[in-house]
């Protein structure tokens, strides 16, 4: 367990993996703690990455300030922790509320941003999203933390996942209630009340940005991710099939595959931030990792692409990839009509089997900054 002193507060963080490996920092969602990233940590470390996780102020093992909380502190805290572990540049990924922190980090600390991976997130709150947040806040403060978790359940997960895990849901809820300091979560939520639109600001993000949106995410729906895609020139939007908001918990291995592929593309110089939209291959270990998305992906109704046509395209893309192709000589693709991704010469792919390998023990440290 490592502790970073931020003013009078303590921020809990942990690093995993080899010190000289590319760093991926994960930023928690609202009711998360570092433990929730564990399946992804094991997978990504086994694939040759170094992973940093931390609890934001108000969460998990970090201090829960009663009065002194500011949303903008979160990106600063991350920046200072990166300094602390001696990392000049990192890939920063965050989910939901953490995705907003990752985006803020992207424009507030451009030199430290090697790449940004916002997942299931937003830059502005439309009427529907405001009501969802309002209901959650009321549920938390007027009924209780248990009800708040119940409200989140169908927003975070698909029905299939809930059915599959119904035997452990009550148990994990009890653990969550025991682990969380309610006032810490309430304080973090209160920050959302003063949240201001950052849509204009994210246009300043220049680093490669992979935006991940679950197919069935009704909490932060597609149009909120579309706003991010349009604003960030060096971006791509990837739609992840058959998952809801909390995809990093629902399908951690597939998320690792997508993230590892993104980093591999950036590191090898094959990344094209062309503002195109893709559909992730839902099969673990399959190539290509994603195929171009056609049709109006902002609609629930599949107006322009039938299931048969989708399968045809998926198979065609897979066949194309099977051919050995030089990578850097590829022609640039036009936005909106993306070409299929070429197969990467993948030294280490994040797969389910990788997740079973042992992970380096985390370092322990206590330091003071600020």
């Amino acid at each position, binding site marked *: 367990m490592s502790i970073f002193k931020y003013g009078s507060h303590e921020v809990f963080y942990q690093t995993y993996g080899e010190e000289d490996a590319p760093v991926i920092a994960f930023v928690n969602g609202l009711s998360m703690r570092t433990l929730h990233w564990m399946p992804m940590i094991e997978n990504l470390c086994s694939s040759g990455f170094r992973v940093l996780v931390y609890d934001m102020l108000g969460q998990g093992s970090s201090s829960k300030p009663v009065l002194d909380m500011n949303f903008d502190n979160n990106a600063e805290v991350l920046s200072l922790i990166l300094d602390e572990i001696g990392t000049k540049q990192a890939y920063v990924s965050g989910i939901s509320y953490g995705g907003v922190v990752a985006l803020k980090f992207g424009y507030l600390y451009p030199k430290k941003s090697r790449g940004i991976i916002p997942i299931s997130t937003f830059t502005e709150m439309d009427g529907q999203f405001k009501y969802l947040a309002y209901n959650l806040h009321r549920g938390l403060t007027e009924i209780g933390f248990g009800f708040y978790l119940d409200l989140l359940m169908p927003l975070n997960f698909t029905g299939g996942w809930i059915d599959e895990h119904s035997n452990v849901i009550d148990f994990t809820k009890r653990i969550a209630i025991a682990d969380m300091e*309610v006032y810490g979560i309430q304080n973090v939520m209160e920050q959302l009340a003063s949240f201001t639109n950052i849509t204009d600001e994210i246009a300043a993000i220049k680093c490669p940005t992979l935006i991940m949106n679950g197919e069935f995410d009704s909490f932060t729906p597609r149009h909120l991710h579309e706003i991010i895609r349009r604003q960030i020139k060096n971006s791509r939007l990837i739609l992840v099939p058959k998952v809801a908001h909390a995809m990093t918990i629902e399908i951690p291995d597939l998320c690792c595959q997508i993230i590892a592929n993104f980093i591999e593309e950036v590191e090898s110089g094959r990344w094209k931030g062309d503002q195109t939209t893709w559909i992730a291959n839902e099969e673990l270990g399959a190539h290509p990792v994603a195929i171009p998305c056609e049709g109006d992906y902002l609609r629930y109704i599949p107006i322009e692409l039938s299931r048969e046509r989708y399968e045809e395209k998926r198979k065609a893309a897979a066949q194309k990839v099977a051919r050995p192709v030089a990578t850097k000589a590829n022609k640039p693709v036009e936005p909106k009509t993306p070409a299929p991704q070429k197969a990467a010469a993948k030294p280490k792919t994040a797969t389910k089997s990788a997740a079973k390998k042992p992970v380096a023990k985390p370092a322990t440290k206590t330091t003071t900054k600020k």
Partner: protein
Amino acid sequence: MPNAAERMKLLAQDFFSKNDLGSEQETRISLFIQAIKTTNASILTKIEFQPFEWEPYKSLHKQYFKEIELSTLLNKATNWSTNPFVYMEATQLNLKLWQMAEVNQYMQRAFSVDEVFFTYLALSHAFMAEVRILPVLPPTMPLNTPFLSAIQEIEEENGRQIQAQIRMLKAIELPISQEKKEEIVSKQQTVVQSCFCDLLAAVCKLPEERKG
């Protein structure tokens, strides 16, 4: 490194993973929580002298009656011990809480928006935030006994009430710095944490040397 309070909670978790709650344990817990609730209610009786328009009135009025309601609920749900020493030790702990939290200073005059009122709100916040029994019980322990369902009801209500405390603590305008306010909040948390640790030590009958 976990601090003393966190270490005590871990020890209590370990204890309850091997032991059920008996009447002595229920009695100690109830006497401590009832002391908090009745202390808070005693302070809050003065709220009825405040005008309805006073901003904190409505939430403190609600809190006053909730504290009485929950204390009586616990009274009915507890499997009371017949061991007189349990009551004697519990009284000592409650007196310690009164002294450490300087409860007498809140009893003497009407509410007004000043540092004493802010300190009281911070104490009340600490009561609700720090005194939590459910987190030290195994998540598999059924909560369908009268005592545990009453504890659950109390902790859920605390979670609701705490929101009003946070709002008031943040909104109250005083001629003292933010650092000073943080210091007050932190001090009240430490006081309540310390007494709660003593309770857990007594409930789990942990030797003194293991508490620190």
